[in-house]
């Protein structure tokens, strides 16, 4: 950063902090703009920002923190923190050296449980991540090679340009400029095409999707068809909808959405669910999914037990 100051600049800053002395001060005080500067200095120190009660803010903060994931335990890990950090650092450096990853710069962004997150990629394409999802990409070379790696679920709005590729565990999506939704969790892989054209590849299968179509892979085969309105992912507008989806998958989504733990040992989660839940309250979501399936629940701390 260039931080060379000319005489006027360095004198001004010194004067404002009361450190301009002697002849330099006398000279400045007789200069043409002195009165105006003085007025600025005096009046600006009278400005006030809206007050906040810090104790109240701390209370709000504590309530806010309660909704976040529990902080990592600090028992034995904490005691041997420095030792472990050292070992971990050495291991990481060794891996980086051997794989030559040092020059590359992977950028990762994650939507934690209970939040969705909008991120603008270097080419101005936009990705909206659903709760408990992340993407990573090479920040420096991204404009040359538009490839992102997705874990979980995200909606993409891609700027026109070279090929844009979304890789995830079960497949890859290749597009030019369009918007689409990718869901890849627990072996279920679904890609919905919103606008433009999308090419999906999974295993040996490939499909080209037109707007309104979706492709899904289960157990290795890829199929595509027109999506019914209720099959289009709605999470961006505060709603998850399902058609004949295993209950386990639905409860996983509720866990991510509200950052809670759901114990379901006493319930058959292989049964399928058709319907939706909304994101505005956990109680409502549990009712929306639970009542048609005849499932009730008890809550203790952040743990919900299904019956």
């Amino acid at each position: 950063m260039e931080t060379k100051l000319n005489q006027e600049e360095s004198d001004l800053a010194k004067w404002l902090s009361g450190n301009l002395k002697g002849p330099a001060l006398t000279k400045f005080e007789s200069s043409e703009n002195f009165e105006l500067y003085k007025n600025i200095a005096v009046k600006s120190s009278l400005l006030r920002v809206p007050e906040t009660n810090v104790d109240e803010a701390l209370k709000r903060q504590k309530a806010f923190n309660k909704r976040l994931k529990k902080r990592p335990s600090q028992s034995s890990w904490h005691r041997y923190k420095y030792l472990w950090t050292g070992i971990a650092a050495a291991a990481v450096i060794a891996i980086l050296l051997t794989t030559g990853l040092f020059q590359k710069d992977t950028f990762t962004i994650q939507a934690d449980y209970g939040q969705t997150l909008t991120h603008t990629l270097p080419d101005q394409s936009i990705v909206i991540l659903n709760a408990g999802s992340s993407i990573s990409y090479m920040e420096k070379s991204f404009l040359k090679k538009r490839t992102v790696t997705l874990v979980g679920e995200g909606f993409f709005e891609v700027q026109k340009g070279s090929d844009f590729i979304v890789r995830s565990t079960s497949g890859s999506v290749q597009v030019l400029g369009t918007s689409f939704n990718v869901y890849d969790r627990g072996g279920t892989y679904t890609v919905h095409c919103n606008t433009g054209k999308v090419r999906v590849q999974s295993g040996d299968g490939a499909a080209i999707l037109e707007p309104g179509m979706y492709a899904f892979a289960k157990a290795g085969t890829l199929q595509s068809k027109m999506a019914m309105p209720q099959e289009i992912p709605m999470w961006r507008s505060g709603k998850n909808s399902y058609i004949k989806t295993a209950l386990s998958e639905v409860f996983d989504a509720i866990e991510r959405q509200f950052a809670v733990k759901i114990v379901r040992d006493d319930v058959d989660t292989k049964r399928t669910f058709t319907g939706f839940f909304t994101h505005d309250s956990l109680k409502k979501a549990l009712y929306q999914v639970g009542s048609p399936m005849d499932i009730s629940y008890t809550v203790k701390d952040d743990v919900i037990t299904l019956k």
Partner: protein
Amino acid sequence: MKGFYAKKEDENNICNDHVYEAIFTEHYLKLRNYIYYKYGDLARAEDVVQDVFGKVWQNCATIHYNTIKSYLYKAANNSTLNDIRRLKVVRSYAGTPVHSIHFESPDFQLEEKEFMEKLQQSIGQLRPKQREAFLMHRIDKLSYSEIADLLDISVKAVEKRISQALIALKSHLGNYKF
């Protein structure tokens, strides 16, 4: 074996509630104001700062007590970056550029009031880096070296931002007859 060292470690452990609370109380307002000066939106500034302190709480075991200050300001900066990028997108759709800073100015006679209003407008038009540094000094009464420390820049850089802010304010207000 728990003697002096154990106690000392406790006091530097951000996971301890009283340490966390002390950090919060010390830095909350300054951090909020900093983000406010930067982008001129108080509600958003409070959201950003809440988010940052949430991160501190989540990662308390891995954040070093000695580096907490620069962690806070860096995290706040990053978080606003994401926010502002999104804002840009939203704005390009909505087509309404808004940027305003509202201060509570003391009551004065008319011409004083006029000057205050004009001064606030001019501050709103400063470049963000100049505005941040200038207001941290004028309102939060931080010294140049404190500002340099928080923003992780040199004192010279702070002085430069402050002087440029003064020069810009002077030329804005100089054309105005009071």
